[in-house]
């Protein structure tokens, strides 16, 4: 059931990705649905699952973006690990906590991409700071709205649905 939710979330993220690419090209420079998905899944505190979710979501994003294959997967895996690790100890819950995790995840994600691009391609990312701020704000806002809708729809704490099973 947890992975089914992740699969559905991944399809929705890819749909958003395609939609935005079709109607608002370059809009993914301001908003990243894959980060929302990975953070949502990782907040269950399942570090192992978070890593897998980060890899899969990142590879899908890589497959449909112009970046070198594995770049987003790398960044999202780091984010997923960090969020899952923190949540395995603190068990953050609620919309604000989700928003906070998203802010951190987006910043980490962007920093990792920035570093990797610099190392591997020796390219400078144009307007990195501005892009990161805008992306953080929009992704955080959108993610919090999605979280609230999920809470209304599931009638429970949405994160609980992604928690690792007892004994893992």
């Amino acid at each position, binding site marked *: 059931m947890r992975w089914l939710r992740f699969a559905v979330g991944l399809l929705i993220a890819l749909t958003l990705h395609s939609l935005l690419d079709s109607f608002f090209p370059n809009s993914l420079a301001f908003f990243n649905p894959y980060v929302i998905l990975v953070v949502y899944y990782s907040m269950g505190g399942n570090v192992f699952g978070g890593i897998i979710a980060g*890899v899969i979501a990142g590879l899908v994003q890589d497959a449909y973006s112009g970046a070198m294959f594995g770049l987003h997967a790398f960044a999202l895996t780091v984010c997923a690990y960090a969020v899952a690790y923190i949540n395995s100890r603190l068990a953050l819950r609620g919309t604000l906590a989700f928003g906070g995790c998203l802010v951190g995840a987006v910043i980490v994600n962007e920093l990792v991409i920035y570093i990797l691009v610099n190392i591997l391609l020796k390219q400078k990312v144009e307007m990195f700071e501005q892009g990161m701020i805008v992306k953080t704000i929009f992704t955080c806002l959108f993610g919090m709205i999605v979280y609230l809708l999920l809470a209304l729809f599931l009638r429970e704490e949405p994160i609980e649905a992604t928690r690792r099973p007892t004994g893992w």
Partner: protein
Amino acid sequence: MAAPADVIPRRPTLLLIVVLGMLFFLMSISTRTRYIGETRTMFERSVMILFAPVPKTVNWIGQSLSDVYHGYLDMRRSVAENLQLHRQIDQLTTDNLRLRQSAGDLRRLRSLLGYSEQFTMMTTMAQPVMLDTSSRFKSIILDSGSNSGIEVNDAVVNASGLIGRVVLTTKDMAKVQLITDGNSSAGVLVDRTRRQGVLRGDGSTGAQLYDIISLADVREGDLIMTAGIDGIYPKGIPAGVVTKAEKGQELFKSITVRPSVDFGSIEEVIVLHTRKVPNDVVRYAP
């Protein structure tokens, strides 16, 4: 069985390191293949193929919605354009009718003008305002009279031929006796043989040619022209065509003439201010 708390982070950390190492390797391959021109690795292609239905479906839906939206817009534009074109067609049809009318008028007037230029005398253009061909007395009323120089006994013609003569004038109107009138007569000749005679109206739609002796050569289809011997009509105006020529009861032939003018379609006429024969010349008796 619950795992010890200090073990949980270690195994995922190891996994993380392995995964990140693999991803870094993947990125390196991807970077290298980009430099040699191959932009997709096999693994990347596999992921794309696996998830291809999603973007394809999104694209299809987006395209369909776009088609519907643009179809609706195109339809609205077509309807508006159709209405506008209908209005234009109506306008152009009206213009076309007016132009056709103008072209017809122009052609007719040119014909009249060319016809009138062959006469050396003064001419006046006039239009009939009344046409009476129903009774035995055939006449038309013109919209010009003595103010335009029209006098009694002026010949009236159009491009087709002889119409008649002016029998009455007012300042701004003139009455014309048609050659089909029962009291009308004109000196004419047969164009082919130059045989002269008198054309009199039959009070109906035609005329009779008199004073042509039985031996004269007159046939059906012969053109009848004014002879210029009656002091009213100048010489050489087409008056009609012989439709029937047969032997009469006495010395003369019985000849029926169809006027060259269709009196039912007269629109403009030319009044020829012919030179009148003075009365004292007419009545002079030696």
